[in-house]
């Protein structure tokens, strides 16, 4: 397996200059605005939580919920790490938005032919050995691009060397099975707008538990149903036969059944 890339975001270093937002907007051809919320025209933003500037972008999960739920595979996790989107496949069902634990995919609500927008870690740049636009633009080393394994070590090292600056938590190391964008912070992550109670388990696993059982269910279920049909059909046939044997002394039950059976057959 290829070594996966990622971005380490150090919120203690961010100075809120918004260079990353501008670089991102230029890369996508979005307008420059002062609205610091992710939207169909913003794939990265810097938000202020208390005294801390928090850059937000796609987490590029190891096992992304968005890619797992997409019925047409318009989203997928590349071998290199970024989670990318293919507009031409998309049917606009918005299940990715519903499933994402970080509210990342955004939708063009006011377009007649809309699509999803999300950060793709500047896939066409990183593929060619360059850095993502936002990382390149950052003057404060708040975003570092590199291999995820190296970035995790770097994060651990930073925490060890400056235990007073950082909380003992690399966000994204284990959350929802791990993410390619990982965070360091000086305060608890729940105070910075991060979802507080995320499972360690990758979200797609919750559905795979059930999805795995489907082929077995189909084989056994239809066999069982066919068996039921055989049994009840035979019972009916036997009853009909017995009735024929009893002919000449009809009773209420038999004649009623006979009428119903005849009624059923008449459909043909």
């Amino acid at each position, binding site marked *: 397996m290829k070594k996966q890339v990622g971005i380490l975001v150090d919120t203690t270093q961010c100075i809120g200059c918004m260079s990353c937002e501008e670089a991102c907007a230029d890369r996508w051809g979005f307008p420059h605005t002062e609205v610091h919320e992710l*939207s169909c025209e913003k794939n990265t933003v810097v938000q202020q939580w208390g005294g801390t500037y928090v850059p937000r972008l796609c987490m590029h999960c190891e096992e992304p*919920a968005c890619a*797992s*739920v*997409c*019925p*047409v*595979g*318009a989203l997928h996790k590349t071998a290199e790490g970024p989670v990318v989107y293919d507009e031409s*496949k*998309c*049917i*606009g*069902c*918005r*299940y990715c*938005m*519903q*499933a994402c634990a970080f*509210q990342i995919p955004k*939708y*063009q*609500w*006011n*377009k*007649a*032919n*809309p*699509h999803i927008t999300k950060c793709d870690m500047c896939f066409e740049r990183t593929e060619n050995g360059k850095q993502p636009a936002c990382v390149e633009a950052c003057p404060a080393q708040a975003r570092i691009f590199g291999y995820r394994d190296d970035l995790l070590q770097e994060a651990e090292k930073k925490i060890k060397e400056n235990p007073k600056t950082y909380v003992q938590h690399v966000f994204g190391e284990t959350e929802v099975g791990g993410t390619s964008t990982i965070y360091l912070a000086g305060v608890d992550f729940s105070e910075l707008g991060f*979802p507080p*109670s*995320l*499972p360690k388990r990758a*979200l*797609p696993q*919750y*559905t795979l*538990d*059930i*999805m795995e059982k*489907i082929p077995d*269910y*189909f084989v056994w*279920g*239809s066999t069982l*149903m*066919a068996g*039921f*049909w055989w049994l*009840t*059909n035979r*019972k009916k046939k036997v009853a009909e036969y017995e009735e024929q044997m009893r002919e000449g002394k009809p009773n209420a*039950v038999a004649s*009623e*059944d006979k009428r*119903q059976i005849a*009624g*059923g057959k008449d*459909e*043909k």
Partner: protein
Amino acid sequence: MLSRQKIKGKSPEEKMKSNGFLSNITNWFRHMTFWKSVFLALVAAGLYSTVVRFLFGLGAATHLSDDFPWGLWIGFDVLCGVGLAAGGFVVASAVYVFNLDQYQAIVRPSVLTAFLGYVLVVFALLFDLGRPWNIWHPMVMWNPHSVMFEVAWCVILYTAVLALEFSPMLFERLRMHRAVHAVHKVIVPLVILGVMLSTLHQSSLGSLYLIVPEKMYPLWYSGNLPFFFFISAVAVGPAMVTIESFISSRAFHREIEMPILSKLGKVSAVALAIYLVLKIEDILNYHLAPYLSTFNLEGVLYWVEILGGVVLPMVLLVIPKVRESKRGLFYTALLIVSGFVLNRMDVSITSIERYYSQFGVNYFPSWMEISVTLMIVAVGFGTFAWAAKNLAVFPKEVHAEAPAHAESYEVVVLEDNAQLKSAHTFGMEAK
């Protein structure tokens, strides 16, 4: 058995010729009734919203947003639409797989409702999908890990199965007897396939929500969601068939198949009992007691759902007196359906609302969303009424018994409940 043509005197083709399609339509408008005008008003409002939706996008027509991507159209049109059509596979499997011939009389209305239901769900989906012209993509662009991919395939296949199950009604009308015969030859494997597909996608609609454990209110998130969705569909299917039989018996002045419907009520009762046991297991597994004793919006809705939509109808159905009375069975069925709809809305909207409210979003559907939903429901009712009038949906005996005096017959039935009841007890005893 008498054929339809003999009773009516004229064959359908002859009728068509003598009336003409255009004069049929002018006649429809000339004899305006209350329900026809309601139908027209709903369709007009819905069409206006349709234009807005497709010209200016979902944002212009709905209250959906980045912080609330799925609303009424998924919660009601899709989740409830598919569930309420469950009568089709419940009754079809009873008759063709379990050979319970006594349900034969209601197979056709059930299959018709199911078929219409699925066609309308797909129709509704065209409004909700951002790029509806790509709706065929799941057929060629596969992602087998996606629950929605599986639902898409099941719905495509099952709609095809339902179309085949429904086709004899149309073939008979067109007098294509060989086609009717051909369908009957494959009906058992067809129904088995239908049951498999239904089970899968009814439950999968619940599985859609398995991936958002962090967003859903604990009262509704459960690993058992697929089972809840499936079992509640089994419970609601017969209830819908019952309600539909009641409404159509009024509209078309025909007798209700009470003994059959009462028996079908028992199916609902058993399904509700299993559902309740699983729900109790859920309360213990997920330690829901503190949420149950919190009477916030979620807590109250949950209690209403369980007590009003599960426990109460289950108890009522167990009482023979209620189950065998017209009114009792009708209102019980109404309870089951309401509880079911409330549950689907709770899972899809209420349970997620608290999570999204942290982004300052409180979703309530816009009038345009509601108008589209109402239009689709109206179209459903209208199509059912048309089919019931023009195709051999209901058993022939009923038409044969009182073709000319149906109206007066119905009045007698309504006025004289005691007589009716004795007729039922007689029917029950005979078995």
